[in-house]
């Protein structure tokens, strides 16, 4: 028998999780925006809006310390970050386009070398997904093979019901455990009908066809055409649920400080700049090409997946109106 949870109980669940010491992260009002942020109480949860930044932050923080160092009389001491201290986290009301991202990123963060910072956070996080019943004209998850009702990536999946509340589906063992542990908050779904899923518009993409075009078109006037407009900022990459490039920097003083890993973007002019001054991707067309190729070709070549969930954030955020969906449509039609 399928389960359901009322909105009130969903908020109560958050309260309970917070009380028990979990970090609960979900969409929360932040000034004029909604952002995935730690929730202090269930009432802070915002269910109506797609957060401006993706949920990848929960696994791959915007900026995190990877070690600290101190110079003393006896030389340098390097201190590890103890991953045991990463908080147990429940990600709530995560849209399918965000929930799908970690499943894509697992490959790169475990490729030969396990990035414990990512892995440990991943292990300690349960994802409660939420089906989308509303899409805007930037959304294109269906075009890249996902859907507003996609449960993949979630541990527990909520689908809004027409009469209020959510149908609850345990997708993984982790989800089942959550369901069992807080069973008092879940009821029987009964005959309540789920709201129809959102219908992102736009042409469907044939990703294999796009990949084939990318395989053959490292050189194409398309790249320059886009680069003429591209301002070279990192807004697209930083809002993207699947972009995973990062930088490593030391900060602090000579005597003591921290080494930090933080998001970086392949669109930045100096991203690949060598110390000698030689820059393999010295023009914006090469950088944009790399961004698109990485998403739909290179990552596919390496890991059999594409680095895009169709969340549309880059489309909404691009200050010069570069629309990755329009670019893909164009390639698709070639």
């Amino acid at each position, binding site marked *: 028998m399928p389960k359901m949870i009322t909105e009130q109980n969903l908020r109560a669940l958050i309260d309970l999780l917070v009380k028990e010491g979990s970090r609960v992260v979900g969409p929360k009002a932040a000034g004029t925006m909604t952002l995935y942020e730690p929730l202090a109480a269930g009432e802070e949860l915002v269910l109506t809006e797609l957060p401006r930044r993706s949920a990848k*932050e929960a696994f791959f923080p915007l900026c995190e310390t990877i070690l600290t160092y101190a110079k003393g009389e006896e030389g340098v001491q390097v201190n590890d970050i103890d991953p045991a201290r990463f908080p147990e986290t429940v990600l709530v009301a995560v849209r399918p386009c965000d929930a799908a991202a970690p499943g894509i990123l697992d490959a790169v963060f475990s490729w030969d070398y396990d990035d414990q910072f990512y892995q440990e956070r991943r292990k300690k996080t349960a994802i409660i997904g939420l089906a989308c019943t509303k899409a805007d004209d930037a959304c294109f998850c269906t075009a890249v093979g996902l859907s507003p009702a996609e449960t993949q990536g979630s541990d527990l999946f909520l689908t809004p019901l027409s009469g209020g509340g959510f149908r609850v589906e345990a997708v993984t063992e982790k989800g089942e455990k959550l369901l069992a542990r807080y069973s008092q908050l879940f009821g029987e779904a009964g005959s309540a009908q789920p709201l129809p899923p959102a219908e992102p518009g736009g042409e469907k993409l044939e990703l294999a066809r796009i990949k084939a075009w990318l395989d053959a078109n490292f050189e194409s006037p398309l790249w320059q055409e886009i680069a003429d407009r591209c301002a070279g900022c990192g807004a697209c990459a930083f809002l993207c649920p699947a972009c995973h490039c990062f930088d490593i920097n030391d900060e602090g003083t000579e005597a003591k400080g921290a080494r930090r890993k933080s998001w970086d973007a392949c669109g930045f002019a100096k991203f690949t700049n060598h110390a000698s001054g030689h820059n393999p991707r010295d023009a914006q067309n090469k950088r944009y090409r790399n961004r698109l190729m990485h998403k739909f070709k290179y990552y596919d070549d390496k890991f059999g997946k594409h680095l895009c969930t169709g969340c549309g954030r880059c489309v909404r955020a691009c200050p010069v109106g570069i629309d990755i969906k329009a670019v893909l449509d164009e390639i698709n039609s070639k």
Partner: protein
Amino acid sequence: MHAEKVKHDFEPKIVAFVCTWCTYAGADLAGTSRMQYPSNVRVVKFPCTGRIDPVFILRAFQKGADGILVSGCHPGDCHYMAGNFHARRRFAAFRKLLEFVGVDLARLQFSWVSAAEGGKWVEVVTELTERIRAMGPLEEFKELELEECWSGKIDTPELQEAYKAIP
């Protein structure tokens, strides 16, 4: 001879950005004349106030200064003709920007101290030190330095330890 040392609860860190031709020479004069002034001030000298980038001021606050003095030649005395005139405008603007962001301008002092004004140097530095002492430490920038985005925040004693060490 020695003024009696008073023990204070709080010894502010004062950074003085000075031009080498006038104020540095003035401070030097104060020293060679055996005038007493608070040892809280750390002097950083530049060829000219025109070389003192507002970023230096910001950086000093970020790295733990409780008060900052910027000092150079009197108008008309610039070794490079007009460096201090340009600096004057730049600092007038920068003050307004800092104030708008929420920095208390009482922590930032500008002065003209010539090579002959050892006494004025002592006066400016003493007054600034006492004022900052009365105001207490500059917490805003120190708090900010410790702040992390939520996703990168972890509760580790090692990290806290490292942060505490940031002067």
